[in-house]
């Protein structure tokens, strides 16, 4: 390849670089600038140093939101990954049944996030909602707008309904990619269904499952629209996750300085999690078993 072709490649990269610069790097720089100042207006700002960081790191509401977020993301992974694998295992492998089940499974993924929240508000209403009134009809008092546990159950149900299909599709793709020869060999050896899963299907799905875990962790860690529409972070603060708390602080109270400091901390945590998962993905890619 000569030098001119190399340079042409650079021209193709420049637009992407500019888009990333405008959409990510410049706003991030601005947030860093805001995080060390008390901003009253464009020309009215006071340098406060690390004060907002000290405030954010000692803010018990932020700690609580962080714990809630970790619990939420942990539960998401604990439920969605095994459930996704289970559904993928039971789906038809070929024929019209395979196509139909793929379309049906993918449906929740096509609905916009804020619409999902609205659907579940109506679905879970104790008076007119299909599921909400059914649960109350069984004699179990259920109201996601009044009880913290009910709100959590509703948010988890919504999240699992919305995003398990992604895990299903990925696990299904992983299962379909396993050569038939493995299953034939297992049948000859008289392997049980569990052994086939444990020693053939699960190891072969390792790559796609790592990506699924990465995507679900990151998405759930950054979740905002669905719980905000469904519960608004309530009742009380029981479903106020990190991003909801951040928006309340920045938009609701217009505390741009503290919200910026908190954003930087949030960004660093997400960056760390991304890097850890990226390393895990690299290991999967190179087939490193350690």
């Amino acid at each position, binding site marked *: 390849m000569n030098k001119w072709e190399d340079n042409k490649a650079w021209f193709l990269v420049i637009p992407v670089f500019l888009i990333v610069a405008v959409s990510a790097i410049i706003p991030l720089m601005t947030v860093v*600038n805001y995080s060390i*100042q008390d901003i009253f207006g*464009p020309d009215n700002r006071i340098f406060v140093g690390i004060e907002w*960081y*000290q405030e954010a*790191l000692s803010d018990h509401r932020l700690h609580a939101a962080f714990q809630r977020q970790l619990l939420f993301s942990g539960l998401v992974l604990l439920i969605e990954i095994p459930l996704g694998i289970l559904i993928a295992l039971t789906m038809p492998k070929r024929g019209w049944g395979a196509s139909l089940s793929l379309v049906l499974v993918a449906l929740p993924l096509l609905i916009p996030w804020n619409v999902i929240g609205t659907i579940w508000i109506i679905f879970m209403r104790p008076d007119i909602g299909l599921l909400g009134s059914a649960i109350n009809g069984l004699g179990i008092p259920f109201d996601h707008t009044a009880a913290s546990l009910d709100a959590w159950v509703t948010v988890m149900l919504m999240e699992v309904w919305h995003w398990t299909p992604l895990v299903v599709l990925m696990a299904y793709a992983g299962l379909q990619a396993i050569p038939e020869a493995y299953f034939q060999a297992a049948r000859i050896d008289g392997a049980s269904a569990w052994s086939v899963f444990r020693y053939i299907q699960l190891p072969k799905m390792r790559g796609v499952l790592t990506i699924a875990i990465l995507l679900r962790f990151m998405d759930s860690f950054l979740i905002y629209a669905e719980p905000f529409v469904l519960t608004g972070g309530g009742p009380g603060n029981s479903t106020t996750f990190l991003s909801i708390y951040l928006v309340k602080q920045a938009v609701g109270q217009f505390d741009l300085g503290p919200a910026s400091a908190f954003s930087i*901390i949030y960004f*660093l945590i997400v960056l*760390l999690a991304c890097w850890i998962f990226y390393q895990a993905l690299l290991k999967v890619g190179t087939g490193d078993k350690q």
Partner: protein
Amino acid sequence: MNLTWMAWTLPTAIFFIAIVSILTAMTIWQIKAPSAERKGFLPISTTPGDRLFIGLLSSAFIHLAWIGLTTLNLWIAFVIALIWIIVLMRWG
């Protein structure tokens, strides 16, 4: 171009100039003398770029831990982070 809306301050300008300078220097270094991955005391094989990223990210957490856990001067954390990055780049 009017950059008032970005609310620049001298410390943040110095911070970003330092980051850009480090990245530029690393890029020039890589072009002049391309380096290979190697294994140091870190549990993974890394290039100098990887080690710089790990160093910068961990330095940010060192500073945050310092702010959250102590009331001591932040410059001490800065010196610790600087030593950590140097150790990481050399033996990581």
